[in-house]
């Protein structure tokens, strides 16, 4: 993998002589090249900025809510019209104290609930993605590099997993989760189970891509030469193959996260996610469906939160892919 010569916009003003004379053409690593490309992709950078912002919000949720909102499960009857059960005031009760408005019936602060919801969504999405990527990468590399019956078994396994009715399985499993298991209890256990379900059943998507990449890498000259110099399998895998897989792994992980955010939201929407009163974006949308005609604003904030998160991750992921692998453009 040699780096293509980069001629950036600012370099065009430089005279060719200077290049020849200076002789200080610096060999740039893959990462540096990718970073330079990424820096010029404003859309991807915006996505990355939003992603960073969301992560910060999730981490700092308790402090943000303390400053700008109310405890997420606290009831505020006075802000709700007792006759219609809808928040008083315009836009679903948006005010200085209720930045995103209030929930119908009990008047909970939607701002706080959306902020706390981000913790659940991002935590589950990140950890589930990590699990998928680790399993997917290992299985993909093993299948691609060793080939033969190992490849056959792993590939068929992937087919089986891909054919698995994941959503139905998730609903069934989340429905029968006991209160305590594996030293976890209540919502922590349910989070763990959801991470496991999403992560464990999504690895073939990563696995297939990695297997394909490994298959082509295995036949490349630098691998051949390493082999002819007497390198063994583990060394080749670790030193020659894996470094070249970092890019696709990174790209697929970034693109898997928004999918997992959506999947978690779908589970919460269907009521098989976390238990009330825990705020989740999907759960809030599910509650809001009963009110959409009288109080459509209830649906706006969790809906926008999901929309922005998924869009930001997708834009960033696309930009990252373009930066790391320009041929895929």
């Amino acid at each position, binding site marked *: 993998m040699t780096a293509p010569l980069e001629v950036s916009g600012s370099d065009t003003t430089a005279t060719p002589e200077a290049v020849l004379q200076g002789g200080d053409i610096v060999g740039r690593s893959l990462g540096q090249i990718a970073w330079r490309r990424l820096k010029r992709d404003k859309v991807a950078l915006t996505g990355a900025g939003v992603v960073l912002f969301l992560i910060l919000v999730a981490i700092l949720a308790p402090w943000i809510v303390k400053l700008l909102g109310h405890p997420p499960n606290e*009831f505020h009857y006075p802000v709700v019209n007792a*006759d219609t059960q*809808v928040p008083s005031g315009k836009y679903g009760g948006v005010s200085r104290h209720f930045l995103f408005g209030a929930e119908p*019936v*009990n008047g909970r602060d939607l701002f706080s609930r959306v902020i706390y919801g981000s913790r659940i969504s991002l935590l589950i999405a990140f950890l589930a993605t990590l699990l998928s990527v680790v399993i997917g990468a290992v299985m993909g590399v093993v299948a691609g590099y060793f080939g033969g019956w190992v490849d056959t078994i792993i590939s068929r396994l992937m087919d089986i997993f891909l054919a698995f009715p994941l959503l139905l399985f998730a609903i069934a499993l989340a429905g029968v989760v006991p209160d305590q298991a594996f030293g976890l209890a209540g919502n922590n256990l349910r989070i763990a189970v959801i991470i496991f379900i999403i992560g464990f059943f999504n690895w073939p998507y990563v696995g297939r891509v990695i297997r394909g990449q490994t298959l082509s890498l295995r036949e490349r000259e630098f691998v051949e030469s390493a082999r002819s110099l007497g390198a063994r399998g583990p060394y080749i895998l670790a030193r020659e193959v894996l470094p070249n897989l970092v890019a696709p792994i990174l790209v697929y992980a970034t693109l898997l996260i928004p999918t997992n955010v959506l999947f978690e939201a779908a589970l919460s929407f269907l009521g098989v996610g976390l238990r*009330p009163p825990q705020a989740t974006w999907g759960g809030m949308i599910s509650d809001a469906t009963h009110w959409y005609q009288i109080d459509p604003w209830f649906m706006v904030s969790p809906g926008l939160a999901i929309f922005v998160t998924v869009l930001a991750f997708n834009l960033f992921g696309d930009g990252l892919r373009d930066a790391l692998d320009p041929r895929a453009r």
Partner: protein
Amino acid sequence: MVSAIALSAAIALSLAACGGNSSSNKSTTKAAFNAGVNKVFNASDTKGGTLRFANSGDWDSLDPADTYYGYSWDFIRNYGRTLTVFKAAPGAAGAQLVPDLAESLGKPSADAKTWTYKIRKGVKFEDGTVVTSKDVKYAVERSLDKDTFPNGPTYFNDFLDLQGYTSPYKDTDPNKLGLKAIETPDDNTIIFHLNQPFSGMDYFAQLPATIPVPAAKDTGTKYKEHVVSSGPYMFQSNQLGKSFTLARNKYYDPKTDPDSGRKALPDKMVVELNVNADDIDNRLISGALDIAIEGTGVQPASQGKILNDAALKAKADSAVIARLWFTVLNADVAPLDNIHCRKAVLYAADKTGYQRAYGGSTGGEIATNLLPPVIPGFQKIDLYEAGTKPDGDTAKAKQELAACGQPNGFSTNISYRAERPKEKATAEALQQSLAKVGIKLTIKNYPLADYTKLYAGKPDYAKANKLGLMIYGWGADWPDGFGFLQQIVDSRVIRPAGNTNLGVKIPAVDALIDKALKTTDQAEREKIWPEIDRTVMENASMLPGVWAKGLLFRPSNLTNVFVNDGFGMYDYVTIGVKQ
């Protein structure tokens, strides 16, 4: 028996007193909120016009043997006559039974196991043939066949002394009248033999299953396509699942119908089926439709619109329904086996929050005890300050917790039906209010369809999974203490699974129910229901939440509109159309 006769005479008198005509003081013409509750709105005797109904779903069945919806029982009086019937009258009179096809209410034997009714003379089917007791017997017989008619209630299956009889379609008797539990010594007499004493037989006699069916015209499952009318209207056309039209039955003679209060004002009734619920509301408000036939109240969107607009609100009625939303406190789960811990929950619970979960004052009234106010005999029994401290009494709750030996509170679970957002809101409200005294609730939801079969209604499961509080609701098939209470508080109805009594086990209550079943004097019987109610409340076995109400809309072109307490919705046999 004497008292029963005296009673029916008394009812007849009271009916005469409020026999809804325009001169009655129980009527109004001024459009106002609740103008159709407890009084007749726009009283009129003018006949003619077409009354337009719409249903957001489909009927379970138009066949009198196969229907179990309240609105269907309300409407069916237009094309069928039951032995007894809820009086078409506003206010409490609507929850009283009067004779319809029968000459008087039933005459019981001393042990209340045998009941005799006399059929009125001169009542005719739509083809002019005379209705006899055998038509009624045949109708009840076919209603027993749950393979053919799965939707209807099973009261006759459960209470008649069947002796193995299953269905007239498998009957060896040439006239298909082989059931020994019902005797028809002559064309005007019908005698029911029950397998146990049951003082409330008159309530069974108002079931649509007693609407006469001529055996010769019975087409089994296809009978619903053309039910042979014995009432003021008959089927003119019927497109199943789409619409049907009723026109006057020329053989209906109002002289044979002095007690029921039927008005039969419109010339025609048109019912559309499977119409979008929001569309129904919009058409009601615009005047393009007369009645949303389901009678369960307008959709949430329209509710907000109506309540916020004075002109629209003046055309709305808040109808009380014989339904209670409640939470059972499970004595199988420690520490709720201790009555003081249960009382602590009752004191601490935020009753206003419960009401808000069900839509605030339009959704219902804060319940202090079990029996809904429309049930005859109702008494308000407020043992836990639901009236004085509706937000919960923390001090009293803490006292009870101390008496229970849990001064710092305890942890338990609360279950609700996942598909019911109002029950979820209830669970969250209870969680908040009980947390104030240290009672920590973990909320668990279960699918509605299996709630009683596999979860809350399965005592083993509820106990093993420590469901201390179980959110539920119950509506009576008709406004009567037995129909309302028995299924939710009689411990003997508790089975291994599929219960509607989620765990009330009080021997004194069982004894009182038995006593009521043997008491044929209606006034005496109606004193027992509040006694049962009080006993359950003293035991702190249930947290009553909300006595339900529905917000009904009455377009201004209707006359003679009122809410019938017997059905908890508008009475469909009295409404007329302005000409």
